[in-house]
């Protein structure tokens, strides 16, 4: 059981405190409710570029001062951009808590005075290289662009990826930075979690001291496009890719109910039954039988109209692609007959892994921010350890039959091509 306190400052900033003095380390974690889903047409990838710019200084912090300050006291810092949110975090010796709060508050309140076209140009190049490194120069690197654009129509906020297109990355301007900051980087659109070695009263006082004067803004604009979407694609949507990849691979995805609904939990159980561990179905039926080199699946916990389920099977060099796909979809189609034993094993495994993950306070802090952001209730973390336990066999089977059929599926297949 994690001890959790929640407060809201006058400017709307939600504050989560989770004291634990086991190690003299403290984690500071901020979630801004903005991600790739909020991007305007022609500006894909912008939420992520903005995240990079948050490290380029603010009114009182010089360029790269953020990393410099944190690293020189023995801490680590980073940020990630995702579909529904952008997070920023520091983990550092607990007597430097003020430093992290000062840095985070300075950029939440006073980022714009430090922005210049030259910094944007530099980070544009950095992000273009990130895209090359992760997508364009990597075998299978474009799988998520292909899966997302098949599974979600152009009108849906998840149609495009977080990294965005090179063209749109090239188009980002300093004016975009100012507009995005004004619309989304507001205390009333954020959560801050302080987790680890801290006195909660003192930590709240410090958060108030550093963040309290940042003015709130209007509610952020609605997410562009149409979030509501039926959990069916009508037929299996597919794409074949002949590319310089070493092994045949099949990605199969399905639209499923959002993370914020109760209908998500049976899906989590299904996904563990199918794809987690060496007693899972995909391992047992595909890997152990040598139909695939590897086969796993997971649920991507998204909140805007839908989430998605993703299964990936990689073959051996001589595995025919049709056979690989056949074996994978056979396992998905048959998930409606999952047994009580399989479910029990999946749940006990997930509970243990979740508990172990909480050992790392940076992860604990991130989860608390997530629950506070998506559910308005950080304490839900404690209940969620038990929530999977209450899912019934019938709910599991119904979920599998309802969402993992061929009429709700996108399939992308990679076929190894010879060198060009």
């Amino acid at each position, binding site marked *: 059981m994690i001890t959790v306190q929640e407060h809201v400052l006058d400017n709307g900033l939600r504050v989560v405190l989770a004291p634990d003095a086991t190690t003299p380390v403290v984690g500071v974690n901020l979630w801004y409710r903005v991600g790739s889903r909020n991007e305007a047409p022609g500006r894909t990838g912008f939420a992520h570029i903005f995240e990079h710019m948050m490290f380029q200084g603010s*009114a009182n912090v010089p360029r790269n001062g953020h990393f410099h300050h944190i690293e020189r006291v023995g*801490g680590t810092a980073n940020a990630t951009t995702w579909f529904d949110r952008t997070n920023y975090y520091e983990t550092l010796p607990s007597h430097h808590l003020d430093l992290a709060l000062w840095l985070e508050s300075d950029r939440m309140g006073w980022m714009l005075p430090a922005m210049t076209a030259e910094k944007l140009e530099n980070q544009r190049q950095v992000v273009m290289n990130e895209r090359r490194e992760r997508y364009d120069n990597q075998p299978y690197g474009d799988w998520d662009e292909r899966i997302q654009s098949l599974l979600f129509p152009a009108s849906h906020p998840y149609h495009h990826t977080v990294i965005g297109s090179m063209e749109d990355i090239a188009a980002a301007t300093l004016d975009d930075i100012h507009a995005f900051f004004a619309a989304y980087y507001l205390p009333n659109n954020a959560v801050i979690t302080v987790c680890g070695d801290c006195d909660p009263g003192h930590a709240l006082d410090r958060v108030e001291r550093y963040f309290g004067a940042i003015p709130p803004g209007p509610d952020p604009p609605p997410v562009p496009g149409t979030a509501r979407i039926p959990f069916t694609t009508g037929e299996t949507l597919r794409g074949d890719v002949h590319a310089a990849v070493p092994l045949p691979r099949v990605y199969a995805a399905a639209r499923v109910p959002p993370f914020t609904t109760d209908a998500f939990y049976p899906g989590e159980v299904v996904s563990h039954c199918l794809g987690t561990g060496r*007693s899972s179905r995909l391992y047992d039926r595909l890997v152990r039988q040598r139909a695939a080199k590897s086969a796993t699946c997971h649920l991507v916990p998204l909140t805007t109209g839908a989430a998605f389920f993703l299964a990936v099977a990689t073959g051996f060099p001589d595995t025919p692609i049709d056979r690989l796909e056949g074996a994978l979809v056979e396992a998905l189609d048959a998930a409606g007959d999952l047994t009580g034993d399989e479910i029990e094993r999946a749940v006990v495994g997930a509970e243990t892994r979740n508990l172990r993950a909480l050992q790392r306070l940076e992860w604990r802090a991130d989860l608390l921010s997530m629950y506070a952001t998506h559910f308005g209730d950080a304490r839900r973390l404690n209940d969620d350890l038990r929530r999977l336990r209450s899912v019934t066999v019938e709910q599991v089977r119904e979920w599998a039959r309802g969402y993992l059929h061929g009429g709700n599926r996108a399939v992308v297949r990679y076929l190894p091509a010879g060198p060009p």
Partner: protein
Amino acid sequence: MRGDDRRAAPPPGPIRPYEFPAVAEERLSNGMAVRLVSAIGLPVVTAMVVLRAGETAAPVGRGGLAVLAGDGLEGGTTRLSSRELAMALEGIGASYGAMTGWDSTTVAVSCLAEHLPEAMPLVAGMVRSPAFEEAEFDRCRAQRLAAAAQRRMDPASLAADWHARLAYADGGTYARPLGGTESSIGSTEAGDARGFVEARYGPLEAALVIVGDLDSGEALTLAEAHWGDWHREVNPVPEPEAAPRLRSRSAHVVHRPGSVQSRIRVGHMGVSRGVGDYFPLIVLNLVLGGTFSSRLNLGLRERHGFTYGVRSSFAPRRGPGPFAVSTAVANDVTGAAVKEIVREIEAVVEAGPAGEEVESATSYMAGVFPLRLQTTGQIASRIARMIVFGLPEDHYRGYRDRVREVTAAEAAEAARRHIRPDELCTVIVGDADAVAPQLEGLGLGPVTVHEEKA
């Protein structure tokens, strides 16, 4: 708080003490070493068997044998099939696996502390009586062969493998990929793996590490019950075969047609873990390319926008592992980026790091130490390192003090001793037509273009 109050970074509060957890050292009746840590916190435990039998112990031409033997441990025991083993361990919520490196194979299980009595005999079975049943072994081998094929198309893996081959060109254990080559893997049979285990896994060349929410007495009783009657005489693994230094610079482009980026690796044979000035060297590396604020990253990423990130590293093993600077850059700036990397390497050897840089680096290293010791698995892995490298008992207890004692002069001396700008081997995985011409005239030594054959 507004305006003027915000100008300066706030001062720290009073520092809080940190101690590496107390490690109880025990021995079972058969002489096998046991290390116990009763960690406070969540009710979980990690048990890790450390076997001093890594890839270094694989005979010449048998690269990948230790890795395959390790994989094979998951393939079932004389009592339980691979499937039954998985059902039994995952049925109690345990995660388990074997991992093989150059210097060791570790078999670890993590679960709720209350389930360790059920998990321990299963893990003991994996290590003490693996079946290496033919069909299971064939599967492991097919997976490793496919993984080797994947490495040949992945730019970062390809650069690392080519760099090893070229930087250890005149021989030595580390010239080959850890997991072996397709030919060495393909020719390994189940009997070879069984033979390796019988020759290398034994209680006096192994240790059991248990970290978690468990009373030490209980843990020791459990260890004795499942490991105390294990008897097998094995010889210690010999020292890795040393490779001669390369005495000149050379540059190599591994042609990857159509590449939109160049994967760069610049370095040479580095140091072994036993090196006397380990701490000054690690501090020096942090300044050069070990953190975000390092010279290389601020230069190549934040000043020039050449890359998403660049890092330098020493990879100390029982023998001298590689020193390398690694990054990925756009085709058109490949030459400029390599030039910059070499300039930074030369500069740090020439003038050494500044006092302020060393102060930041030592403070960073001492500070992040407890950040990386939060989980039972992280603590167990640290203890495993002590066992594998024969580090003194007080190594981690005194770690932070020793880090803080490193001076700028010592770090400069470590740079001069262990980085040799005249012997840099540069490997670029990229489109040779686009990037090879950019390397001429940079003083990198002779430039050779290689074809990676499928």
